[in-house]
Every structure is written in structure tokens, then in C-alpha cells.
């Protein structure tokens, strides 16, 4: 396997697979596959054949039991056809192989509800944090400034100077921890990769609408201690070209959008470390 390969899982209410695949291609992956969950459950496509797994935005099962809950349950319990393997085994093997996972919005919700994040001590199936209803009680589509934690181990954010500007589009993005201890471990380990902030990326904020959901410590994104697993509520795939910026007709912007760097870093990491 000499090609860098990204996979985007879709099905049961996932919505952002096209633009996520596009971002992977622009980011430099040699091959990008959009795989329907049915094709993975049937055994036609295996996660083992890829380096970068994208869990993208959408409304898995309508978020009917709380965001991404039903899919977390499905992934944990469903078996792959023609084998005794549970689907979740493919995930744990993927993580153990040192590969990359990026969960965006509904994908982030799925990661925390499966327990993949923050993933302390290699426990990737143990839920300790959650994402729940925005304080405003409503779905919000608006752009947010995200201050980066430059000391984070996250491999996706390498090279980001102060922060990036991305849209959020969610009703359940409020980040909460099960205990102060969990929060302290996240903070001490610099796992809170992005925080909602002011336009200059200097101060994180709890004020609506700059912080659209009321997240604890303004946390918008999280990575595991290895930095290879990351989840975030804002949509990096929604800003890979300047015409996606809400003010591109009035500001001078570079050709590339702020979100693309996450995919570029993933592709570079895969090329340097995984093939």
C-alpha cells in the first residue's frame, strides 16, 4: 500500500460526505472513498484498508435518542456479515494501528458517545464527556472564531498560528464533562484543541453567539492524548475555498479556506507515518 487512502463513512443520516471527501482530495490524499455503512457491514469495504477515517456531519438516525446515540449503539453491537467480527473491532484495530480519525459535528458527537474521545489511557470505548443541547435551545448555523491551543498534541492543527474561522451548524454542541477531574485532565493535557473566541483569537468566550452553545471552557474541539484522533463541532470541510467565507465579497482572502489545513496535515502525516 503506497497510496494514502481516506475513507468517509455515510448512511443512516450522514450528510457531509461529499464535501468531506472533496476536502480530503484537496488536502492531498491519493485516494478517497465514500463508503455507505451498509457496504462496511456487508464486508465489502474494510476500515483496515485506509489511513484516515472521516466521521462527518449529519443527523445519524435523526439524532432521535440524542445526537449520534443510535449509531454509537449500532457500531458497538452490529456484526460484519460473513464473520463473527463486530464492527467496533475494526475501529479499535484502526486506532491501535496508529491511524487517524477526524469526527466533525455529528461525527464528533459519535466519537464522544462511543467513548473514543478523550480516550485517556488507551480506553477508547469509555464515555466520559458529552455534547448536548445548545443553551439557546435551538439549532444554529453561524460562523465562529476558534482559538487554537498551540501546545496541543493534535496532529491536525500543526501550523495554525492563532486560530481559524469556521461555521457551526448544530443543535447539540454544548460540551460537558462527567467530572472536574476529566476536565482537568483535558486541560492539563492540552486536549481542548479549539475554543470559541473573539475575532482576534485572543480570548476564549462564553458569550452567545461567539460561543454558540455554552460549552464548558468554550471547548469546540478535542483530541486524544496521541493527537491522532480529533473531534470538533465546527465544520472544517465547509471552508476549503474562499468563496465559502461569508464575507468573501468584501475581504481579501487567500485562495484556500481555513479548514483545509486539517486535511493537509492529515495527508502529510499519513504519507510520513502510515505508508
Amino acid at each position, binding site marked *: 500500500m503506497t497510496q494514502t487512502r481516506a475513507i468517509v463513512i*455515510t*448512511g*443512516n*443520516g450522514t*450528510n*457531509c460526505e*461529499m*464535501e468531506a471527501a*472533496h476536502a480530503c482530495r484537496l488536502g492531498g490524499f491519493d485516494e478517497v472513498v465514500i463508503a*455507505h455503512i*451498509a*457496504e462496511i457491514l*456487508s464486508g465489502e469495504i474494510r476500515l483496515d484498508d485506509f489511513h484516515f477515517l472521516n466521521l462527518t*456531519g*449529519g*443527523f445519524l*438516525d*435523526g*439524532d*432521535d*435518542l*440524542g445526537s449520534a*446515540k*443510535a449509531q*454509537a*449503539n*449500532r457500531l458497538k*453491537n*452490529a456484526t460484519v456479515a460473513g464473520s463473527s467480527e463486530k464492527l467496533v473491532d475494526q475501529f479499535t484495530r484502526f486506532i491501535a494501528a496508529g491511524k487517524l480519525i477526524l469526527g466533525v459535528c455529528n461525527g464528533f458527537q459519535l466519537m464522544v*458517545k462511543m467513548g473514543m474521545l478523550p480516550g485517556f489511557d488507551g480506553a477508547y470505548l469509555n*464515555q*466520559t*464527556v*458529552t455534547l*448536548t*443541547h445548545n*443553551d439557546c*435551545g*435551538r*439549532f*444554529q*448555523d*453561524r*460562523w465562529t472564531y476558534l482559538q487554537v491551543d498551540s501546545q496541543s498534541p493534535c496532529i491536525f492543527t500543526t501550523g495554525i498560528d492563532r486560530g481559524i474561522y469556521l*461555521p457551526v*451548524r448544530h443543535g447539540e454542541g*454544548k460540551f*460537558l*464533562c*462527567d467530572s472536574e477531574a476529566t476536565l482537568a485532565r483535558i486541560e492539563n493535557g492540552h486536549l481542548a484543541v479549539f475554543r470559541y473566541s473573539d475575532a482576534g483569537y485572543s480570548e476564549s468566550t462564553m458569550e452567545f453567539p461567539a460561543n454558540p452553545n*455554552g460549552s464548558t471552557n468554550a471547548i469546540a474541539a478535542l483530541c486524544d492524548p496521541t493527537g491522532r484522533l480529533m473531534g470538533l463541532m465546527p465544520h472544517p*470541510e*465547509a471552508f*476549503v475555498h474562499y*468563496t*465559502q467565507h*461569508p*464575507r468573501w*465579497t*468584501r475581504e481579501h482572502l487567500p485562495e484556500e479556506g481555513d479548514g483545509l489545513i486539517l486535511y493537509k496535515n492529515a495527508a502529510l502525516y499519513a504519507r510520513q507515518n502510515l505508508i
Partner: protein
Amino acid sequence: MANRIEISLKEGVRDARGERIKREIEHFLHLNVEGVRTLDVYTVDAPLSSTELEQAASGPFSDPVIQNWTIDRPAAAGFDFIVEVGFRPGVTDNVGRTAREAVSYLTGRPFAEGENVYYAVQYLLKGTLTVADVEKIATGLLCNTLIQRYSILSAAKFTATGGFPAYVPKVQVEVKIEVKEINLEVSDEELMRISKDGVLALTLDEMKIIQAQYRDPEVLAARQKFGLGAQPTDVELECLAQTWSEHCKHKIFAGTVHYEDEKGNKQEIKSLFKSFIQRTTKDVRERMGDKDFCLSVFKDNAGVIRFNDTHSLVFKVETHNSPSALDPYGGALTGIVGVNRDPFGTGIGSKLIFNTDVFCFADPFYVKPLPSRLLHPRRIYEGVVEGVEHGGNKSGIPTVNGSLVFDDRFAGKPLVFCGTAGLMPAVVNGKPAHEKSIKPGDLIVMTGGRIGKDGIHGATFSSEELNENSPVTAVQIGDPITQKRMFDFLIRARDKGLYRFITDNGAGGLSSSIGEMAGECGGCRMDLARAPLKYPGLNPWEILISEAQERMSLAVPPEQIDEFLAMAVRFGVEATVLGEFTDNGVFHMFYGERTVALLPMEFMHEGLPPMQLPAKWTPPQHHEPVLEEKEDYTGDLKQLLAALNICSKESVVRRYDHEVQGGSVVKPFTGVANDGPSDAAVVRPILDSFEGVVTAHGICPRYSDIDTYHMTANAVDEALRNYVAVGGSLDLVAGLDNFCWCDPVLSEKTPDGAYKMAQLVRSNQALYDVCMAYNLPLISGKDSMKNDFYDGTTKISIPPTLLFSVIGKIDDARKAVTMDVKRPGDIVYLLGCTANELGASEYYTMKGFIGSNVPLVDPGTAYARYQAYNRAVVNGLVASCHDLSDGGLAVAVAESAFAGGFGIAIDLSRVPWKGAAEGWTDMALLFSESASRLLVTVRPEHADAFDAAMGDDGCAPIGVVTEQPLLSIEAIEGNTIVKAGLAELKEAWQRTLREL
């Protein structure tokens, strides 16, 4: 015995849902509550072990970080009253369905027939409330009793009884399937009773046509062969009622109109649809010659036009008014997921790329009494907005464009327009994707959801006025996820060439979809007993006409059926073979072995003679008011900015995902703080290309109070003007017409039918005239003709309303223009002349007048202006552009200024004027809504080139963009008549609906 699993939030976790309910109780019902908490309840009616129940409760049903769970033990505490709200039997319960699936994954066992999980919510109310207050909260806010049930307990009663017992809303029906025969050899009164009692919505003439059919000896002989008697079966009668309903057959648009104008000239119009709408498209296409871009018009579920060499665009706009009046949430949700199926079911199928929504409501702050059956406009507003939010967002389709229009007559029926565009490859498997066919022998396949009693008589009930007895079953709740799964499967099946024909199951259910498909090849044979049901006990006629959602009908060649069905199983989509298509000219329905309907295709589709419709135009008389000129209009401007039809709709728009799929170029909001109102939307449906799709719309029902001709002309102009403003190309743009009328058929109930019909004729005349001038082919549309409320005493008719939508192209989306001013020093131009046309304007409405000088569209000069402007855009000469509509010039300059964050200073004496000098007043210049005008800003260095591009057609520099954040307007006489800071103008504009 069913088990109750209750999920509560842990101590200290904020309950955003409860807080919202608390706000709404205070806001809507003016009751004080100290607090509202909420609980989720899952009632599991299936034999699960206690371990399995615990696994479900602690696993998929709850979030361990923030929630607790209990099993068969009430979790509620710390309240004064508790209200539990769940669905009535048979109502779509999406959460229950997902919960059931989750349990199946957990146990590894599928649910048996009749086993299920049901969802309910508990509201824990704290405060000094009476039982009557709680009753009011339950029925006025928490529960729509049409589809939901509720129970209330006080804290004391709750403790005494140990909480609510497990309640299983299972459909209990006697499993006695029967087919009735209906005797039509009865009196005329009896015929009408049969129609009315059965919600058939058939007229006496139509009943008599059916009566005559069953007297025909040839028909009787054919029936005898299949064991049928001389009387129609209920399956046949119901099927004809659906097929012939106004909703499905468009009898008014197909009827013969006897029109008399104000001068007494008489004219017979055979079919408004053919004479105006179809003719518009035909004539425009002929004129375009080899530049014609229409691919499929009027014949499919949506219109199809060329996008580029490799792709075609598909667009349809629908209405879902009557269901939204009864159940705003379910009605609107069904509206949006329903219209999604139109482009999906067009040609061989398309990928859905955006939604558009336009809602017409009465004032949400309405305080006057309403007839008992009508819901308060605020509740309709809330429900519709949320229904479309869930439908659109969950389907992963961006909502890119829309409007909210307010007029108190929409209390009688709200209008809920939902549109969806799709993109299809020009060619799929070597064949043009916009074409499809059926061969005799192809199998009838239904995919998606199951059939229940939901949505029975939707088509016929919406063909009548809303009344006290409107049927509950007409309401459905959509399920975007079941539909999304089906689409995920079908789009892959399309690319593998596994089916030959696809269409949607909408109004009339299978009777309509299979009836139309059978028309393609000349007949069908279908066994209703094979249809998958949500619960047992449906009679054959109910199976045939149920409008249960999320279903598509397909024709699958027999040699592909195995692969098709196997793939459906893999994708978790139900697909069932119901029969086959034939060419024997008969719509032949079985229930098992027995024939239950035998209808000649010709009688079904051609058996109805055209309606005869009188129409007489008498122009209404409204006096033009004489208003005193003012020295300062700043207050009036602020009041206008706050008016419902003008104010910011951001609180609604932000709830709609307008960026999913990644192609967003011009968003609903723009400008320095992302909050200025865009005129139109631009999206890039193909992410590695810069070709953009542009969509916009026009709607101005107020002008109907003066003349529907001009209402229509202005709506078409507004749509194209918005489209052009952002940079849409005039070489590739098409229109869609959605007529929403009050009943225009002269009858006892509608004594002014001839006038309303004349309004419809005039509207059609304008549609033809203006579209011809604008080279706009009409590619699809819809009419909804019974938008009245009548309970025997009160009648509320909506103002005749045309929603005109356009879809087209911008060759390079990077050239798109937004409405916010860009930099100080830029020159402000006004394109197009202003006239004294304040009739039915927002300004007159605010002052309590209608007036008579309605804006007149001059499409010839307007089209030349739009062409010139487009050249300027393509050449990069335009910094910003905003269309002038509600509220006129004053509102447009205010919006452009505060969106851009820079001031504007203009001089009214420089505004190009047309018409009589005595009308030339500051008031008219500020607030007249004259058509076809654009406010443009241009960098000084581009001014000469812009002047040259525009020529001298009513294009004038009227002012300048200023550094200081101030709007300043100089009067004709040179004095300042508007002066206000941008912050205060924006605040006035944003405040009205901010909290909704």
C-alpha cells in the same frame, strides 16, 4: 405487560428544552411558571429481560454523562404539575422507531409483529398554577390533540397513584377486511351525501358521470368477467375521487373559463394552464431556438433544464397548506420531505442540492379572537418553522433561500411553500437521465416506508375549504431519516441501472403514482394485499389511497428484480413487488385473488369533462389617500424597518442549515457582521467547478387588493430582479409558478367566485406577458385553489398569491455580488425610474391605506436594464447591489448601509422619475415600490465604465458611501429628511422577530 423507561437529566444539568417551554408559556399564554423540566419516556411493548431493559436504558436511551434512567419507577420529582405527552395510535413516532431499532441491535433479535417502542415526553411544571392553567398549557402549547394525547397529574395525585401507568398507543383495529359496493342508483341528494360523508370532494356532476359509467352495458360485461357487480366498489370510488380531485387533476386550471373584462368584452379560455402557462414555455422556447435549455417541462414531477454539458438541473416548488393549518409541525415537515421526492422522482432520479421555503402567516402577535378551529398564528409560525427545520436539516439539504410574508388573512390558511432543486448527470448508463419509460411486464415496486391510515384523504381534503370537520387522518408526520436511507439506496440503484422508471408517492398515494405510471404503458395489475402495512386492519381502499410518507414507486425490469431487492436489504430499505405493468388499458386492483377494482385507464384519466367557470373582472375601487408631507421621515423609516414584512428574519434563518454540501457562495446573510439580507442565493453544486446555480423568488400578495395582473407582474419581476442582482445570467434562467388562491368557483359558499376567477385569469395574463418579455420559460409549478376557512359563519379567504421562483446559472460564481456596501467613497447608483406608486405598499399599509397606484412593470425596459447590469457584473464593475422592494428606496439604502457598516448619503432630487410631476414628492421617492429598480454601488474608478455599460436608461448616481456610520437623505428641496445612525436603524430592523 409494557415497561416504562424514563430518562431524566442529572442534577445541575441545564434543561434547554424545559427553559424554552418556560419562555413560551410566559410569552404565548401569559402565565407565570417558576420552572419547567423535561423527561423522556420510552414505553417498551416487547418481551425483554430485565437485563436487556437495563442495557437499553443505560446504553442507547441515555447519556451517562448527563442523564439518569429508571425502569418502571417514576423519575419525576420536584414539581407541582406534570404533563405527559405522547402520540396517538398510528401517528408516525420517529423516536420510537429509532429506539426499537436500537433495541434490536442490542438484543440481536428483530421485533415481532405488534411489538414496539413508543416515545413520550413529560413536562414537570413548577409554580402556582391552577388545573385550568395546566390544561391550557397542555392543549395550547405542549400537545396538538389531533395527533398527540396528554395526561395531567398534580404532585399529590402523582404520589398517590405512583406516577403514570404504562400506556401503549397501539392501533387496535378489527381485522375484518372488507370491500363495500356503493349503490349510485340514488337521488342527487343522496349522491352528494355519499361524496360529502366520504370526503370524496366529488361534485354532483362528477358523481353523475360515475353513475353513468356504471350503467354502460359494455362496462358491466367486462366487470362480470372478474366477478364484479354493477355498483362501484369503495376501492374504485375512492380511486376516482383521488384521481379527479382538484389537488391531483387541477380542474380549475384545466377548466373552460368564460371571462368578461371591465369593458364587457367576453372571451372563452379553454384551460388557463394550456392557454397561458404551457404557451409561455412553448413560445419562449421557440424564440430561443438552438439556445433553448429546457429538457423536461410539465410532464414529470419537476422541471429539468440544462446546467452544463454533463449535468442538468431539476426544480420543483410545492405547497402544503391545509395540513400545516391543522398540524403545523407535521404538515410543514411533510411538506419539505414531500417536495424532496419530486426532483428525486424526476427523470431517472436526481441528487438534491438545495431547498427553498416561503411561509405566509398572520401576525404572530395577533390579539383578536379567532374561530375555534384555527390555531393561533404564533403557534403555526413556531410549528411550521420547526417542521421545515427538522425536515431540511436532517435530510442534509441546504435551505438557501426563502421569505416570511405576513398578512392577517393567512390566519384562515397559512401558506407553506417548499421547494427543492436537484442535479442529475445529463446521461446515466448511456441514456438521457431526464427521460424514463415503462415496458409492459415491468414490475411494480414500492420502496421506503410502510402504509398506515395516515394521510388518508389528504388530496381530497385539501380540495375543500378548511372546516370544523376536516379529517384528522389527513395529517401525517414525515420521517426524514427513512427517506434519506431510501434515497441513499436508490441513487446507487440508479447508477447501476436497476430500475427503468421512478416516481413519488404523494397526494393520493398508490392510486395516483401507480395510476399515472400505468398511463405510461397502458395498464397495470396490482395486489393490494402484498403492500407492507404499519399495522393490520387496513381495507384495500385505504391501502390504495393512503398518503403515508417516504415512499417511491418504481418500475423494475424482471431481470433486475433480484439484484434490486438484494441491494435494498443491504441498505436497510424495505422494497416490495406489488404487481406488474400491462398494456391492456385497465387499472386492475386485486386483494389476494379477488378483483377489487377494474377501472378503464381512459375513464380514469380522460373521463372528466372540463369545468365551466364564470369570471367577471370588476376593478376594485380604492381611493388614493392624501397624506401630508413631513419634514422628517426618520421615524417612519424606523417603523417600516420594524414591520413584519421587512424586518430581519435571522432568528428563523439561522435555524436552517444553509451551508451543508459545501457549495454555499452567496448565503442568506451577508455583510460586515454577517447579518445583511441577501437578495438571492448562489451555490456551487459541483465542488471542483466554479459554475454556480442561482435561485431567487418574488411574492407580493398585497398588490392583489388592487389588481392580480400587477401582483403577478411584480412577483415575476421581483424574482428576476433578485436573481439578476447577485449576478445570475439571463441566458440560462427558468421560472416556476405556484398559485395559491382562495376558492374561485362560483357557488353558494363563494358568491364572489366570478371575481376571484377573474383575478386568476388576470394573473395568468400577466404571467404570460412578463415571462415572454423576460425570456423566462416556465418549467414546473403547482396550484392550490382552496385556501379558505369557513365554519358556517366566519369565512376567511387568503389574498390571491403567486410565488414565482427562478433558477438559473452564474458561469463563474466568483463574480457574484452581495448587497452590502463595500467601502467609503463608492458611488451609489439607482437603476430604474421611480414613480408615484405607493398603492398597496408597505408604507401605505403601515398608515392604514390600500391606495390605487399599484406599481406597473415595464418589462421591455427592465429587461434591457437587467442585461446591461449583468454585463457590468461580468466585467467586475459592481461593488454591491440590492434590489428595491418592500419599503422602497429608503429601506433598501438603510439595509445596504447597515449590512456594509458604512454610511450612505443620497439626494432625492437626483432619483430618476417617471410619470406626472404632481406625484413627485419626497414620500413617493422614499417609499414607492416601483418595480425593476436596483441600488448599486460602484468604485469611483469604475464609474465611467459602469455609466457606459448602463447607458442612459434611468440610471443615475444619487449619492455616496460614507465613512461615518450614518444614513442621510436629502429631500427634493435640499433639506435633510432622514438622518439616523446605522446602529439604531439596524436595531429597529432586528428587534421585531429576534426573540421568536
